[in-house]
């Protein structure tokens, strides 16, 4: 077994990115993602990479665009506010089929819609992964670079304040995958070949005006991604009268609260989407088909619950037991994020589910 080390989630994710071949990072300081920028600034020069402390989020994503367009694995991180500024580039990076990894260390979980729907224009999608621990952040960062290159599509990792700032034991290098084909689409200088145009506006072949096919190719992969890239963590589903759906770091609190409920004899299960897009709709639908009621815990006003409701198709009740919760910092870590609170909310809706 490889050596395990104690690291903050931010640093662990940044280190995993570097070990996955990331050689370009650009960022703009903003809590709680700043530690990724700090780690990259210290670590990148040692591996021959580049870290840019950009003058704005808009410039940072432009720089990442340039590096990734040249075929280099590139990453950016921010929090929801900064991610908002990058939306035009996000939409067009997807249209240009340029693979990047974007990390959103959210304040609370209010950026579920922003991550899974996006604020950009057009028919684009990001693959979105939500780690619940530093170790999962390490594993998913490696997976994110692989998926981005495999699909030529941006991948977002949605974390939060606790993930970013909690130190845990982690082990690197657990991810492995078959090698991917060379990036012949990258702009590296046209040595030995015709030049190419890497553009969100149309085809890469010179003289071609087939914009329709180029844009259709961008979305043609969406159904395949929905089939191949769903990831979910679940437990106690078989006999459950109530299944609690939660994602990210709060998903761990829910898992613990569900164990407490089980200890009290309540038939409660949990379902934690690891991929937020594609959403594990079939897993939720299977729960609903068995007749288990659903509850959703998320630290926002109710966003993922819409995906749960869509998957449940009205077959079972879907209870909302989350909510906006902040302390004075405004970083989304409030009184609602305790095992006791979650357990009491589960117990409050359980009688209606078990009836």
């Amino acid at each position, binding site marked *: 077994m490889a050596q395990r080390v104690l690291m903050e989630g931010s640093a662990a994710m940044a280190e995993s990115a570097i070990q996955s071949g990331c*050689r*370009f990072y*650009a960022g703009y300081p903003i809590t709680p993602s700043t530690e990724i920028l700090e780690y990259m600034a210290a670590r990148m020069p040692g591996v021959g990479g*580049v870290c*840019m402390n*950009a*003058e*704005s989020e*808009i*410039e*940072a*994503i*432009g*720089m*990442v*665009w*340039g*590096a*990734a*367009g*040249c075929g*280099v694995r*590139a990453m950016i991180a921010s929090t929801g506010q900064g991610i908002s500024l990058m939306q*035009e*580039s996000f939409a*067009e990076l997807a249209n*240009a089929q340029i693979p990047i990894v974007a990390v959103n260390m959210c304040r609370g979980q209010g950026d579920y819609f922003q991550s899974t729907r996006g604020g950009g224009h057009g028919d684009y999608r990001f693959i979105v992964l939500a780690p619940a621990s530093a170790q999962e952040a390490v594993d998913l960062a490696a997976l994110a670079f692989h998926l981005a290159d495999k699909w030529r599509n941006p991948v977002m990792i949605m974390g939060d304040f606790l993930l970013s700032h909690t130190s845990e034991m982690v082990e690197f290098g657990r991810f492995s995958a078959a090698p991917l084909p060379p990036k012949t689409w990258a*702009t*590296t*200088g*046209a*040595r*030995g070949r*015709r*030049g*190419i*145009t*890497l*553009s*969100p*506006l*149309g085809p890469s072949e*010179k*003289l*071609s*005006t087939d914009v329709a096919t180029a844009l259709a190719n961008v979305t043609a992969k969406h159904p395949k991604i929905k089939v191949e890239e769903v990831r979910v963590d679940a437990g106690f589903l078989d006999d459950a009268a109530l299944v609690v759906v939660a994602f990210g770091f709060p998903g761990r609190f829910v898992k613990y609260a569900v164990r407490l409920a089980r200890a009290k004899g309540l038939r409660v299960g949990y379902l934690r989407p690891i991929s937020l897009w594609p959403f594990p709709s079939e897993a939720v639908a299977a729960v609903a088909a068995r007749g288990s009621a659903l509850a959703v815990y998320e630290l926002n006003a109710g966003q993922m619950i819409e995906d749960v409701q869509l998957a449940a198709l009205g077959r079972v009740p879907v209870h909302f037991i989350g909510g906006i919760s902040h302390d004075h910092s405004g970083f989304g870590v409030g009184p609602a994020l305790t095992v006791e609170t979650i357990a009491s909310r589960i117990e409050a809706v359980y009688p209606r589910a078990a009836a």
Partner: protein
Amino acid sequence: MSDALSQRSPTAPLRGKHGEEMEKVFEKPDLLLRTEHSLCPGCGEPVTLRIILELIQELDLRDQTICVCGIGCYTAFPMIIDLDVLQALHGRAPSVATGAKRVQPDRFVFTLQGDGDMVSEGLQEIIHSAARGENFTAVLLNNGVFGETGGHMTATTVLGQHTKTTPGGRDLAKHGNPIKISELIAQLDGVAYVARAAVHNPTGIKLTTQYLRDAFQTQLAGKGFSFVEVLTMCPTDWFVGPDQGPAWLDANLKTTYPLGVLKDSRQ
């Protein structure tokens, strides 16, 4: 096309009206994949593109070149030039070029932006890239108007200039002053070369060629940020005839934006 010309074998010599052999003195640059373009008659942008392509050929840079293109009328160029092109969003070319050059420092990187793209939408990006001394060449095609949208005021529209959003002419009191971007950039540390030229007459084209060559060589020598502003004709959105563009440029743009080298750290 005469029958004689269309039936000529590609290797046969050109012949004139009386059958005399003619020397071919003018043809499209090899890097131009076709001679047709979709820009208006009298436009200065294709003239500038031609100069750039000829220089890339002259300096043997094709295989190592990455062009980062902005959004404007000139966005029609990437598909007809045999170079690797990274298409950037409106205003963002300098940042994209920064990323491209930083990961491939041995490549030759230049940006192509209009005045709307660079000076209106992307002013912050060009200033920061210049101040960082990024080792790429930024080319500004300045015609003082949003050409692609059909004639609207940009940050370089000169005082008195009629556009669809400055009916009656750009008025200092209502619209403020145009930005002299070359002067702004030349004062920044980290900037190695700044020059302004125009492509409205043969002398101007010669000067533009010289400035662009010097800028390219500044980058090749690793000296830092190089910048060439090229005043280009836009008769369509200056609301004059195609043949009136050069005279309008002389009388209006050049008076606000004087030509010459503003900074050359190689000297």
